């Protein structure tokens, strides 16, 4: 961070827009000028058409990686809606997520899109916007089956986390809302039943990006639910009793207030009792979020390779949490000790989403967090023992991310070369940015970084291709929607139709995908498992997770590109609970089911 306090200057000057108040009420973070913690104002980077780089910067020719097939697929028939167009209040700005779920167990990923709501709907004066479950027709199209499935939600929705919490072999949906959350139990017949109240996990204020994971090794998936802002719709921040709205300011312009300056909503960890109910163990487990930081995303994943899932929480404008699982149901708060709490400068970031993956083939999970515009997105290299170093500048990916406001993010191998690439969805929270010359825009395009043997490089968006599609992007989930071995992406656009980025990479690289099925003492959907594949001269790692990317849940099947290799040398599965198995695969370029204790991968018909 720069400083230029000359001896004769009129005030101490800093490039940072941050200028907070030293004292704070419990659970309420001091308000900054803007309500968010971000970096110094950066001047606009414009493309040759004078567009901010966030809405432009496309190239006329080049390899086309993704095509948006939302219209052809049928997904564009559904529209997301969240509050009014002016976005006067923070509740209207955060957007929703997307979940990939094979709800009918036909071997094809279906898509669940969370919807927001409107003030009219909340007041009972209008029909609420519906969430949508799209069934995969296996021909490139999807059919909206929401009504039959009974998963419309009809609440002000934010996130979805997919997992088989009752180990019945059928994936369920946990949907987070402003208001009570839903646990849609899969009835095995194409319908779901909301059992959140009975299960004891409905909560009631503002929940965001939840994650499933078996933290205590009992074979049952537990649930972590981050809380964002404790919000009162009757008295939203800045609104006076006479109905007038007082704005906060960002870079001198009036904008909605928050999250800083607003009371935080605490996080919750729910232990799965195995009988359809859960117990809130946040305090006893040591993850109760006493500071009430503004949680937006979370992820259970084993970051120190001790066989137990640890817990990451991306907090907006406040330090992130990293809880190391110490066993016996207890976590140690290693947020600061790990280096994950802050960025390289020791500054809090407005964290929105978490990507986790081994990008250097050292066998350890690295992390990438999306943050606000005017701020780079930190890439945390895993140094081992649960310690991380922000290497974003060193890796050369800091600068290109600065103008973007990032949300959903993920590491996946889009070109099947065996190296995890990186994608982030982007979109601003202030519509007014389009009236300013800040070098950012309300609608933005996603960013894709190609992993070139451990070095990440920005992939230029070709005009007319999927990477050039603009939206107020929020949730992002990835998976093999068309079972062709190529990873596709679904992005939820706030107040718009979703984007389906169909992978159209033309190469002859080979791949494998594994659907893991846990045994009797393991979560049935194997969430928490780690798979190592050795092929093409190196060893890769991928984890089965539920959550991470902002408010979204991706394909639970693990995918590995293996480049030119026509066989794999070794497949090693570290099942939740500690059992390690070496698996034999009959071939490549296929999707295989791997059942625990079977030792073989069976071709999915």
């Amino acid at each position, binding site marked *: 961070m*720069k*400083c*230029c*306090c*000359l*001896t*004769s*200057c*009129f*005030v101490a*000057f800093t*490039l*940072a*827009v*941050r*200028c*907070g*108040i*030293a*004292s*704070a009420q419990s659970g309420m*973070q*001091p308000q*900054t000028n803007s309500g968010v*913690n971000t970096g*110094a*104002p*950066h*001047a*606009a*980077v414009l493309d040759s058409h004078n567009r901010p780089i966030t809405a432009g910067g496309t190239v006329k020719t080049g390899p086309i990686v993704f095509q948006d097939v939302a219209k052809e697929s049928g997904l564009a028939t559904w529209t997301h809606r969240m509050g009014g167009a002016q976005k006067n209040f923070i509740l209207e700005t955060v957007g929703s997520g997307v979940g990939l779920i094979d709800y009918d167990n036909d071997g094809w990923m279906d898509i669940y899109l969370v919807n927001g709501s409107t003030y009219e709907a909340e007041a009972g004066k209008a029909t609420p916007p519906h969430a949508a479950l799209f069934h995969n027709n296996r021909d490139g199209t999807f059919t909206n089956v929401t009504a039959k499935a009974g998963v419309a939600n009809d609440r002000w929705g934010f996130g979805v986390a997919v997992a088989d919490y009752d180990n019945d072999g059928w994936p369920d949906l946990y949907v987070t809302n402003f208001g009570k959350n839903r646990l849609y139990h899969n009835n095995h017949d194409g319908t779901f039943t909301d059992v959140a109240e009975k299960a004891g996990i409905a909560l009631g204020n503002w929940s965001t990006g939840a994650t499933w994971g078996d933290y205590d090794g009992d074979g049952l998936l537990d649930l972590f639910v981050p809380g964002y802002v404790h919000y009162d719709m009757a008295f939203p921040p800045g609104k006076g009793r006479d109905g007038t709205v007082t704005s906060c300011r960002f*870079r*001198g312009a009036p904008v909605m207030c928050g999250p800083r300056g607003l009371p935080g909503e605490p996080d919750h960890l729910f232990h799965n009792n195995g009988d359809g109910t859960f117990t809130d163990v946040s305090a006893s487990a040591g993850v109760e979020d006493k*500071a009430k*930081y503004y949680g937006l995303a979370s992820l259970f994943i084993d970051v120190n390779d001790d066989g137990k899932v640890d817990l990451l929480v991306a907090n907006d404008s*406040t*330090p992130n949490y990293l809880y190391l699982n110490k066993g016996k149901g207890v976590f140690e*708060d290693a*947020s*600061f*000790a790990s*280096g994950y*709490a*802050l960025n390289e*400068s*020791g*500054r*809090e970031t407005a964290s929105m989403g978490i990507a986790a993956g081994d990008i250097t083939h050292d066998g350890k999970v690295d992390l990438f967090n999306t943050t606000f515009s005017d701020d780079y997105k930190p890439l945390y290299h895993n*140094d081992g023992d649960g*310690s991380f*170093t922000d290497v974003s*500048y*060193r890796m050369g990916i800091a600068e290109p991310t600065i103008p973007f406001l990032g949300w959903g993010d993920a590491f996946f191998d889009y070109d099947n070369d065996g190296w995890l690439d990186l994608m982030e969805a982007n979109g601003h929270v202030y519509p007014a940015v389009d009236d300013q*010359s*800040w070098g950012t825009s309300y609608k933005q395009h996603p960013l894709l970084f190609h992993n070139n043997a451990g070095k990440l490089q920005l992939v230029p968006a070709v005009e007319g291709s999927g990477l050039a599609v603009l939206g107020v992007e929020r949730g992002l989930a990835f998976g093999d929607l068309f079972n062709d071995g190529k990873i596709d992406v679904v992005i939820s656009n706030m107040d718009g139709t979703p984007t389906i980025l169909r992978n159209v990479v033309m190469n002859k690289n080979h791949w494998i995908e594994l659907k893991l099925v846990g045994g009797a003492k393991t979560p049935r959907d194997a969430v928490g498992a780690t798979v190592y594949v050795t092929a093409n001269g190196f060893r890769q790692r991928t984890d089965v997770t539920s959550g991470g990317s902002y408010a979204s849940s991706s394909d639970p099947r693990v995918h590995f590109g293996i480049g030119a290799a026509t066989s794999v040398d070794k497949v090693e599965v570290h099942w939740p609970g500690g059992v390690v198995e070496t698996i034999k695969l009959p071939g490549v370029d296929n999707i295989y089911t791997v059942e625990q204790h079977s030792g073989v991968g069976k071709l999915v018909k």
Partner: protein
Amino acid sequence: MFGVQLLLHAQVACPRDAAQTLDCGKQFFAAQQLKPAEASTRQYLVLHPDSADGMYLLGRILQEKNEAAESLSWFTKAAAIRQPSGDDLRVVAMDYVLLNSYSDAARWLSRSVQMDPANAEAWYALGRSKMMLGDMHGARAPLERSLALRPKESKVANNLGVVAEAENHPEEAVAFYKDAIEWQLTLPHPSEQPYLNLGTLLTTQQQAAEALPLLAEAVKLAPDDPKCNEELARAEEQQGDFSHAIDHLSHAVALQPKSAHLHFELGQLYRHAGQPEKAKQELTLSSQLYGSHSSDAEP
């Protein structure tokens, strides 16, 4: 009695009937002796309550004393009697800066330079106000105007460097910072800021070897500036010189012991240097400081 007190300030010669004129107040003010300047001017205003000159002078003195609210009230009274000059408006703007209202400051500075377009200091202040408002593009023109009126002014070049850096023109920023360094070489008290800014930029660009001598000079000029020590430590760590990096960052922490981010950086530095216990200690301190006041404003 008043005359005797004034005589204590030997360098300012005041007549026995000092209160009859503003000369004493002006002389004390020019000598930056603000207390006697204020006393003298107030005494003058008792005898001459309708003197716009006296009011404007008192407004300036109070602005220098960081008493912005009262300063503004005197400027307001004075303006009711006689139109302010462009430079008066510049001082009014400085009051708004003290009150943390940069938009008001920029507004008055814009009027100031309209009335007095040759006022280099007003153009400079206008540029700075726009920088504080985050309007880096808008800051460039006033700063360039100021530099044209007062060539080789180091502080203006330094700020233009900051603007250029924010505009993603790092090469231009480097040039401005180098100009700022060169132009202050003849000054009796050169500033550490252009050294700090250039060194920091080079460190960010992974050019720590080039940054090190600049940051060392910044620390030499301002040994007790935490930021200078922090940035020098970063460059040293990038060069693998953990020992000196720890020394300088520890000094920064000692200078600013309640800075959560400095403790965090020191903790990470200890960890990278293979000293896990000290790392843990610092990171715990950082955590406690953030936990107690998760504020972006360092104490």
